[in-house]
């Protein structure tokens, strides 16, 4: 019996896909609505996109988000790369190490965000971009680690052994053999860490402090004061950017080994 023959699974699946994607399509469609009230459709227009480009607080928030995501994803990818290289072969405590590395995935984000806020206040750390960078780096590590780990697991060690047999130093082997083969995994990891940081709302919400907002924090406070066509437009931009980056990471992960 083939799973294709289960009755109604096709119909239910199509309905579920509609459930997942109709809201996204509606949101994007409304972002092109010319009407001020954001509720009544008049005619198509890109005026709200022009409006968000001119808004200085949106510009500042977008810049903060970008700087934050670049820094956090770079740091997390570097740390994850080193960790993935060290957990390549089995050793005593490897399971424990991987549990710690994956901890940010399991813990409820609001609890971690609140706890980090308490630590920073207790230590007298100034809330803002630097505080957010530190926290984002920590929770981005598993997102960078998993694709690198997957790429490493699919790599045979024979090329590296051959290089070493031909008297390449350990560093040279790493630079000329391991890294070129591992590169797509590192890029996929970086992209996922970048998207995770860019989209993060809760941690930034607690750690942003007065004066520094990120785009998601800006969107949240804007939603609090009501639905508006500007929010539709920024939201649509954020959605499209995330989707493009994830698709990129997906194809990087599938590059021929």
């Amino acid at each position: 019996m083939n799973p294709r023959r289960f009755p109604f699974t096709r119909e239910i699946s199509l309905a579920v896909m509609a459930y997942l994607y109709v809201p996204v399509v509606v949101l994007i469609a409304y972002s092109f609505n010319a009407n001020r009230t954001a509720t009544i459709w008049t005619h198509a227009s890109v005026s709200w996109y022009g409006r968000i480009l001119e808004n200085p607080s949106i510009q500042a928030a977008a810049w903060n988000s970008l700087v934050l995501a670049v820094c956090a994803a770079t740091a997390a990818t570097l740390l994850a790369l080193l960790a993935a290289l060290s957990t390549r072969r089995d050793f005593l405590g490897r399971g424990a190490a991987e549990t710690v590395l994956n901890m940010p995935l399991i813990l409820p984000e609001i609890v971690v965000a609140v706890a980090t806020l308490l630590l920073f206040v207790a230590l007298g750390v100034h809330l803002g971009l630097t505080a957010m960078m530190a926290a984002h780096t920590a929770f981005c590590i598993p997102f960078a680690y998993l694709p690198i780990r997957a790429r490493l697991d699919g790599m045979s060690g024979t090329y590296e052994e051959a290089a070493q047999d031909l008297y390449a130093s350990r560093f040279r082997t790493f630079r000329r053999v391991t890294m070129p083969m591992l590169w797509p995994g590192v890029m996929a990891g970086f992209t996922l860490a970048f998207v995770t940081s860019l989209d993060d709302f809760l941690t930034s919400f607690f750690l942003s402090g007065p004066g520094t907002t990120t785009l998601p924090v800006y969107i949240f406070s804007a939603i609090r004061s009501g639905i508006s066509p500007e929010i539709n437009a920024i939201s649509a931009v954020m959605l499209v950017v995330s989707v493009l980056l994830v698709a990129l990471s997906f194809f990087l992960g599938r590059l021929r080994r």
Partner: protein
Amino acid sequence: MMHNPTLRRASLLTPAIAVILLLIGVPLCLMGWISLLGKGTSSGVDWASLPSVANYVRLVWEEDFDGTMILNSSYLVIFLRSVVLAAVTTIFSLLLGLPVALWMAGLSRTGRDAMLLLITIPFWTNLLVRNYAWLIILREDGWVAKSVNAISPFGPVQLLYNDTAVAIGLTYSFLPFMILPLYTVFEKFDWRLLEAAYDLGATRKRALRRVLLPIATPGIMAGSLLVFIPCLGAFVTPALLGGGKTLMLGNIIQMQFGASRNWPFGASLSVILLAAMLIVMTAMALLRNRRTA
């Protein structure tokens, strides 16, 4: 160069582990300690106060004007609502996710890859933005509300700011977490086993129950855990779609750090959330061990 492999491994592994322990492990321990302290006047925490369980007592009892302790059910209600909403979301996700996972497993290689990408994409897009999309769809003057009200026999219905809206939003947010582990199980399943069961005279129902279900169970359990746990700590969905009326644990934690400014009480609520999560995870692990034993 370091020639000792253990030393080299430790030096590569330590930075990542140290960052996570310092920025996640240490804060969680500190939070546990702060949950025992009193509320401060300026900074939110009274560091000099003697540790006590007063914050935990406050969850259930409150002091009356004359000093007697009376039951305060408001936090219990919110806790129960969080658990019930998380459970309902898990059940909805299972009902929707199971057919999708089964259907995906029967597709061609390209079809499966495409579906996998389509299921994963929502996970990576902004949770806030996706819940905001539901705010647009369900709002009072939207076409969905208008058409529901046109056919509703009970008069005008409010679609937003209630438990149903939050359940819809939560299911929407976490459904991919259910589909992916289920799909992983079905993808590896050898469908000839079902044929063998039929050949040996099993009815359709019996074959599904005795062959497919035992294999699907680990996937169902993993998916349920992956949906239930983030739901329990949800903040964005109830904040947007519950509109301050349907509060969940995440919302009252945030309130202690915002308007109420009672950080130790917020810390104790977070500890409760963490404990509830650990209890569920342990129960699942025990259940799994008993099944395999």
